[in-house]
């Protein structure tokens, strides 16, 4: 609520004699909380998927699996090109 412009009573039923607090920053904070929670839930679901797909939670192991696969792909690609070039010759 640090970004509220004015302080005062809650803006539910404002009286003309009393200052009213700024409702906008509260509304924004609430919206941001809701969105943040939904997105965090989505992120958590994704983490679950990753855990199931890689059978590991440790970041290092994930990175190792990725590197291994990249190396395998590269080797396959390189050998494919070599054989193509040999065939062309």
């Amino acid at each position, binding site marked *: 609520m*640090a970004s509220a*412009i004015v302080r005062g009573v809650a803006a539910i039923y404002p009286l003309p004699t009393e200052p009213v607090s700024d409702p906008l920053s509260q509304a924004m904070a609430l919206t941001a909380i809701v969105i943040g929670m939904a*997105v965090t839930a*989505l992120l958590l679901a994704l983490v679950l998927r990753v855990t199931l*797909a890689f059978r590991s939670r440790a970041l290092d192991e994930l990175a190792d699996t990725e590197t291994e696969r990249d190396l395998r792909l590269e080797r396959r690609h390189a050998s494919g090109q070599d054989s193509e070039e040999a065939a062309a010759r």
Partner: protein
Amino acid sequence: MTLLSLALLVPWVSGVVLVVLDGRKRWVATLAIAALVATLGCLVAVAATAPGGRVSFTTGNWPPGVGITFQADALGLLFAILSVGTLTAAATHEVLDGVREPEFPGIVVLLAAGLSGVFLTADLFNFYVFFELALAASYVLSVYGRTPRAIGAGLVFTAVNVVGTFVFLLSVASVYRVTGTLDMAAIGSRMAIADPNASILIAVGFFVAFGVKLGLFPFHFWLPTVYTGSRPAVAAILSGSVANIGAYGLLRFGGQLLPRELELAAGALIVIGTASIVYGAVLAVSRRTASEMLAYSAIGQVGYVLVAIGIGGPLGFGAAILYAAVNALNKTLLFLTTRIQGPLVGAAFVIGALSVAGVPPAAGFVGKLGLFQAVHQNPALVALFVVGAVLSLVYAFQIYQYDHWRRSPAEVPSTRRERAVPVALAAVVLAVGLWPEPLLAFSEAAAAALVGP
């Protein structure tokens, strides 16, 4: 006004309905494409009925400044039409190829709702909400296919962008604290008298948020993993439609809301843009697969947009808008041509490659021409752009040689349905290059909307 609200309501309502239906059925996918085309139609109709002018309405009949305002000016409309257009093309490609996950069509339509909301709102907090809607949809899209590779890429994409939007939200809250308003038009004038210490922090926050979205040089680390790990249609959507939010955000927030800070940071922006161009082009040359090359090329291409924004003024902004538009078309076309073979695919790839390098008959030439007009007084930048163009020619034709020139006997040509959209997009890129006047006029109007009062 009716058309403007329809452009938001059509994809929103149909997206919510479609996302619960099984998108692998043909009629659901066809409905989704119809919803996208209807959205695109609404946007084009708004642009046609208000050429150069603005259309705006405030929700709930509140007086302007109290209610949430939607506003369509040339800049927002150009980006909205472009993004929904490339999104429609990529989704049609995937539907013709065969949808693999039940939620795909609905999520794409929801993404269209988020995108047109982002580009057509005049309220800062509303921008954040639509930004999150578009991003949440793209998080789901990034794991599309559910291969381990796509899921890993999706986790990286989601984690990075969650942090990015958090930084953005902090800046939004600070803007409200400093100016006391969320209306974009009012922020521009009130920011000019704000405390420079606060406003520079705010500007840096926005720059980081949009830089992450665009994949600019220091924030690019997530981009290659994601673009190579996801399916071609998803990579095309992420780089052709979702990344437009970054370019639009830099233009709108830099050019309209924080012009003073943009001028102050012009030198830094040009340096970061240059680093992006060089880094992207050099790494793209060293890659051997089409999707990796395109991912690094994407980092390089957004560098040009940033340099043009750094130069500023109507000429610089015009060039940035034009280049961002052309780049989105190129990237959609090129990503869709990966993983397909057969007659005309090679030709479509060549047109996209020529467009990236900026060779005349393709649309890229128009974009490069605008850039050179903006920087012609600065020989160092002209030299940089020439080197960048030559490098892009090298990397694009390297890939052409590997993938399309040599025909390996094991490959079967893709079906005509799979080849239809890339070939049609190539025709569009060529047509824009041959008849660039409408796009030029549109981007000039957009730049005028940005620097005008």
